[in-house]
């Protein structure tokens, strides 16, 4: 084979064999075995019991290579506020779908702890690559909720500027965004930027080829990417057992040469701790990591889905008892971090966001049909200009007809 075909250009490839492999180096720096570094801890990381009490250290699932300092009360209170806003946004949007104001809304009700932690573990310069279900994460990253809703209202495919917010357009074709995330991290490395990229996907999505390609690229090029998998047990109707025969999804990391960890996805404290450490490691060591959060989608896949066809009500009820909101609230109240004044402030914040969503989604905003031709290319082609003129003429004729009808009606009166 000729050399030009197989010689990659550009990206700095780590030497084929250093004295130590990356895993060996990172683990020896941490003073642990490569196995302790790469393999998930024996059980999922959990800080809070479902009742909201702090578990004793030996029950948190932590250990050598799996140490997760608990964030400060201040950070946790902020996380709680975002959690409450996230829940309110989810439920307001679900109501708006029912009222016919939104085209669709895949709710993350039950998964809000994952959503909030995914955004809060990042610094301003870090990128987020979300899916259709990650609206709350996008909002938590700082995008205006009304801009996020532009796509679900059916006005346009994405309502915010991904570059401004370092938040990619929410992706629907499953796991395609993971490769974009890896590319973005690669670009950051090439440009000498201090950027970590966090890329989200679901349990079902881990079956797609792009998932595996993304993990492999990230590991081979040693890129600072945190792959965050929300394992809610289902891909629409299909349970996890049909997606993977691995011990856990976190174990998948090992085959690519990266570390995997699993976390209680309804425990905001554990999520904050685990994701912050993953982001720190990604940044300081320039390595990818995989974090799997075990959670549950409390509602149907979307408004078009009927989940009674594939899961028992009993199971849904069991998960309701593990709700992330109540757990966090109890913990912070018992700790005295969340007092009445703080609770009132949070609830007011939630109502303000919900009211603005209601007002905006109930207003009849209609996008300009002629804009359909404006963004296909940087400059419309001749064909697009012709088609735009055709539609403009049609719209003008319709408007004139409407005016004539109106005049006739008024004349008749």
């Amino acid at each position, binding site marked *: 084979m000729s050399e030009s075909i197989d010689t990659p250009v550009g990206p700095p490839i780590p030497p084929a064999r250093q004295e130590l492999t990356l895993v060996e180096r990172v683990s020896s720096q941490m003073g642990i075995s490569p196995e302790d570094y790469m393999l998930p801890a024996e059980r999922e990381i959990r800080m809070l019991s479902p009742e909201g009490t702090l578990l004793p250290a030996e029950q948190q699932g932590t250990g050598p290579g799996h140490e997760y300092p608990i964030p400060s009360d201040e950070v946790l209170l902020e996380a709680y506020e975002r959690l409450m806003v996230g829940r309110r946004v989810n439920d307001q949007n679900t109501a708006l779908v029912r009222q016919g104001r939104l085209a669709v809304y895949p709710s993350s009700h039950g998964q809000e702890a994952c959503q909030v932690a995914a955004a809060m573990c990042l610094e301003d310069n870090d990128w987020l690559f979300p899916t259709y279900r990650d609206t709350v994460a996008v909002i938590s990253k700082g995008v205006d909720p009304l801009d996020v809703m532009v796509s679900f209202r059916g006005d346009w495919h994405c309502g915010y500027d991904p570059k401004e917010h370092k938040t990619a357009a929410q992706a629907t074709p499953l796991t395609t965004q993971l490769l974009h995330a890896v590319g973005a991290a690669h670009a950051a490395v090439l440009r000498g930027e201090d950027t970590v990229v966090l890329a989200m996907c679901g349990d079902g999505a881990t079956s797609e080829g792009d998932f595996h390609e993304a993990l492999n690229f990230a590991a081979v090029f040693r890129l600072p990417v945190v792959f965050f998998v929300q394992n809610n047990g289902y891909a629409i109707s*299909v349970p996890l057992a049909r997606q993977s025969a691995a011990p856990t999804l976190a174990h998948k990391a090992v085959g690519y040469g990266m570390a995997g960890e699993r976390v209680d996805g309804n425990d905001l404290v554990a999520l904050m701790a685990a994701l912050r450490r993953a982001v720190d490691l990604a940044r300081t060591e320039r390595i990818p990591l995989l974090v799997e959060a075990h959670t549950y989608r409390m509602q149907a896949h979307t408004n078009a889905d009927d989940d009674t066809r594939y899961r028992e009500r009993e199971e849904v009820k069991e998960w309701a008892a593990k709700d992330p909101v109540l757990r966090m609230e109890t913990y912070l109240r018992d700790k005295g971090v969340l007092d009445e004044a703080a609770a009132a402030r949070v609830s007011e914040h939630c109502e303000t966001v919900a009211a603005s969503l209601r007002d905006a989604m109930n207003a009849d905003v209609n996008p300009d049909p002629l804009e359909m031709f404006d963004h296909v290319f940087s400059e419309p082609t001749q064909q697009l200009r012709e088609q735009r003129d055709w539609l403009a003429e049609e719209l003008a004729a319709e408007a004139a007809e409407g005016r004539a009808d109106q005049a006739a009606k008024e004349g008749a009166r």
Partner: protein
Amino acid sequence: MTTVTETKPAAQSAKPAKLTFAGALNAALAHSLEARQDVVVFGEDVGTLGGVFRVTDGLAARYGTDRCFDTPLAESGIMGTAVGMALNGMRPVVEMQFDAFAYPAFEQVASHLAKMHNRTRGRVELPVAVRIPYGGGVGGVEHHCDSSEGYYAHTPGLKVYVPGTVEDAYLMLREAIDSPDPVVFFEPKKLYWSKADLDLEDLRATYESGERREGSAVVARQGTDVTLVTYGPSLPTALKAAEAAAEDGVSVEVVDLRSIVPLDDDTVCASVEKTGRALVVAEAQGFASVASELVARIQERCFHSLASPVRRVTGFDIPYPAPKLEEHHLPSVDRILDVIDDMQWED
């Protein structure tokens, strides 16, 4: 994500009062599973759930999970394993959940499914039916509304079917499953809940009588002045336009292609030669499309019968727009009438 409002599963009784398009497809799958043991149905959510459009409703329960089953969420995996299954004696019917989610499988389709017969000098047949719910007009968000038939029609070795009526939904899916060649079978989403007064047992008997009309177009409405050539999701729109044109004294003939590959040039040309005018109506964007191919063929074959240039009403050359804008993108009755008006009637 699915965005189309859920509707009741297809009726299972032998004589439904009204048969839906989705119900006809469901019955065609059931009857094929009964008729031959090598048929297997698989894809995402086709088992327990019965498909996001309920087209496979009840099949896993009735025929067993060896014959109708959910796969891991991987379209390339579904298509690639279908190729392997067909190579080794099975007759897979696979579902791509939505038009745009079939793209990860395209390599398997274009590089293997379409070519294997030719590569092996005819030694290997790959009787795979690929069902794809497709097209817009249902308020779906992006990636749920693509008209992707052009990609497949452009790939030699694939048959491409697009039924536009409840009857054809049944008969053509059975033909697709029985075909020795791979067939990409497009199911217009907006027609899923359309209904017809049809008896399933009659349909079954019609099909099983052995009479075949594979690859033939049909004149869906007789007329004398202009021919609308159309298929699938645009058929009802074309028929409505013909109805409206009749009120203005223009007699429109509507040809329903049904099958894009193979293409029934004879039926199309016979109609155009009779009327002297042709207008192709299709939802897909027009540039380098099935509609372009039709215009070229009509021009080549019927030039001397034409009283006016062959015209097209198609989707614009833009990515499928968001739900609030799709009505402006899709071929409408008014747009069809405007173009008919413009087809040189004065001379």
